């Protein structure tokens, strides 16, 4: 078995609280990048973000959680998207099959820790948030709420995290350790990441413009998305509708620098090559690349070079959807997995908004208008700190 069936998906991002809302925004070219409202930061007027315009209290109410819950925003967003995915897959009993949850996050409970860091010692009131700092807490909360009892784990490899969650999930299905697995990622905006990326001087003060010669950096975002992967046995037995397949994946390390990508994008090249090989596809079989395309100087050059190395003169249509959502860190690969699946289902390539000027280093020009064409295979890239490079290939359900 080389392909793994995707039977459900759920998403919440700056462009919508459901798959349908996200699709509508992508089709109508409406970006979710805005001025930050939910976090009190000095940088409010010097950055733009892909923020979900709901408070934690509003999210808690939508999730029917008690008001004194100890959910981080990361956990709230994660549970919101994971519930949708499970519903979309038509799952009623979480433990009818051997089920697991593989979630990804980089922020974890930092959004609460940063609020109460000194307060924890002084004040008893918010101590319920002490033990939610570790990244596994959000996964546990999602699993408990969905009633999953089994393999529950969390991956954190910075901005490639949820691609790696999809990878592990597919591996667990193939090796028959699990029959069903919910995979994806969640990350909330936090002062910690805003200031971290600010010190690295890679935050744009305006709307991000991937693959543009005059790009000024990234916009951070927050989001969560999950896919339901199921074994062929379940799909056949229950006559499940398959949304798409995970047909290939690869992870490699750039081994160049802790936070920067090598100029020739070797790690990215290796990840794409591995994914193509596993999918048993040739480069010309890829109809669309959903690029990592963060709009930093470094990423877009490195990724572009790597794409040229893999595809030569015949680079397929590509775009980055980060002008819609911002860079949602550990959730990025999961929301872009949803967009890749939508591209396969609708035979549409979503535009790389804000692009004006071709980069001087190469001739790559992203798709800038909605483009309809038959799409059989989508390649999605995600790269993170620590040289972590991941590629997942999604293929059409026939």
């Amino acid at each position, binding site marked *: 078995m080389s392909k793994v069936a995707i039977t459900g998906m759920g998403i919440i991002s700056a462009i919508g609280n459901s798959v349908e809302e996200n699709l509508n925004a992508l089709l109508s070219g409406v970006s979710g990048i805005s001025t930050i409202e939910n976090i009190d930061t000095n940088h409010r007027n010097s950055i733009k973000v892909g923020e979900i315009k709901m408070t934690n209290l509003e999210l808690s109410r939508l999730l029917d959680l008690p008001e004194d819950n100890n959910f981080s925003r990361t956990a709230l967003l994660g549970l919101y998207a994971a519930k949708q995915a499970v519903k979309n897959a038509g799952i009623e009993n979480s433990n009818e099959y051997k089920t697991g949850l593989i979630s990804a996050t980089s922020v974890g409970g930092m959004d609460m820790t940063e609020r109460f860091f000194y307060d924890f010692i002084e004040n008893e009131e918010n101590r319920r948030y002490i033990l939610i700092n570790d990244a*596994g807490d959000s996964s546990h909360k999602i699993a408990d709420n969905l009633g999953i*009892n089994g393999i529950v784990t969390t*991956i954190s*490899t910075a901005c490639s995290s949820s691609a790696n969650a999809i990878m592990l999930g597919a591996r667990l299905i193939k090796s028959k350790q699990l029959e069903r697995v919910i995979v994806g990622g969640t990350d909330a905006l936090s002062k*910690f990441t805003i200031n*971290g990326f600010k010190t690295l001087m890679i935050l744009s003060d305006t709307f991000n413009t991937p693959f543009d010669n005059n790009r000024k950096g990234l916009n951070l975002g927050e989001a969560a998305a999950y896919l339901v992967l199921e074994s062929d046995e379940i799909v056949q037995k229950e006559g499940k509708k398959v949304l798409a397949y995970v047909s290939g994946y690869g992870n490699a*390390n750039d*081994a160049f620098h802790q936070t920067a990508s090598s100029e020739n994008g070797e790690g990215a090249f290796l990840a794409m090559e591995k994914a193509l090989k596993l999918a048993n596809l040739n480069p010309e079989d890829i109809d669309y690349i959903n690029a990592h395309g963060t709009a930093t100087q470094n990423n877009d050059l490195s990724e572009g070079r790597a794409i040229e190395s893999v595809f030569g003169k015949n680079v397929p249509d590509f775009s980055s959807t980060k002008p819609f959502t911002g860079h949602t860190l550990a959730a990025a690969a999961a929301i872009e997995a949803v967009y890749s699946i939508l591209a396969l289902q609708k035979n549409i390539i979503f535009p790389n908004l804000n692009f004006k000027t071709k980069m001087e280093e190469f001739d790559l020009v992203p798709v800038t208008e909605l483009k309809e064409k038959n799409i059989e295979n989508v390649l999605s890239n995600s790269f993170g700190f620590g040289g972590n490079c991941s590629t997942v290939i999604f293929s059409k359900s026939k």
Partner: protein
Amino acid sequence: MKKVYINGLGNISCQKTFDSVFLEEVVVETDENVLTAKEPVYKDYILPGASRRMAKGVKNGIVASAIAMKEANVSTLDAIITGTGLGCIEDSEKFLKSIIDNKEEFLTPTSFIQSTHNTVGGQIALGLQCKAYNFTYVNGGISFESALLDAKMQLETEESETILVGGIDESADFTTNFFKIAKVIKSDNEKNSSILDQKTKGHIAGEGATFFILENKKTANTYAEIASISFVNRLDPNQIESQIESFLAENLLAVKDIDAVILGINGDVDFDKYYEAISNNLFKNTAQIYYKHLSGDYHTASSFGVWVGSKILKLQEIPEIIRLNSVVKSNYKNVLIYNQYLGKDHSFLLLKQC
């Protein structure tokens, strides 16, 4: 399917577990509820200039992985897979403190860069120029076991032949304080005379970096075979016995086939009950072992337990200091390791003699 073997070990812990054989020079701390790692001579492994900028967990990870690779006589890796509960938490604290103290101004990126959970795996790859698969698991008490499971699947299917797997956690002042407030770590006035006699909440904290070279071939240095691994997010204390029995049954074994059982007992009155029934009943005729009085507890402390199990199977001896009972076997063939963290993330690991 290929079998999976442990062919090299490197362990930086709160005891002298490098440059030693098997716990012959241990100190059981009775005054401190927070143990710190015994530092190796970093300059033997890392250039001093680079070392100064590195987090404690990164340095310990680099040294432990170098020791494991040397012992297994491998120089190239097909994957680097790490597990950590909190990553380089000291740098996370440092960056967060400077955000708050300086009101988001005058910040430098170094501690932010190191705060990412996959820093240790990334830095090991950078040092070795290893462009292979590189994953980091961060799920509390089964962070390390997740890394082991991932590695095991890849070795069984021959996708990889040689994998470096490690568990790393470091302690940091604020987090330690928070854990004391939350009674995860015992408070200062509760002495840890013996974790077996504790009737109080919380554990003795520790830190460490324990690395393993896993391969799908046996070598002259093989410690043990990793026959099976399983973990589950939630279990009630009364489900542990049946969970273990079914885990053993899946491996065509019965309780009597287990020669030694390694338990994660940590002196926390709320959670040691998970070990009680199996200690008093299921495994009462089995050699029982504990180790957290030596390692302290932390999210990836079970990697120390796997290190203990590997040593027992290779050396065929159990040091007195880790014995819970007096059962002695002439031959240790099958070792079961069970751990949980705060009542969650239960893991079961079966090691076999080679």
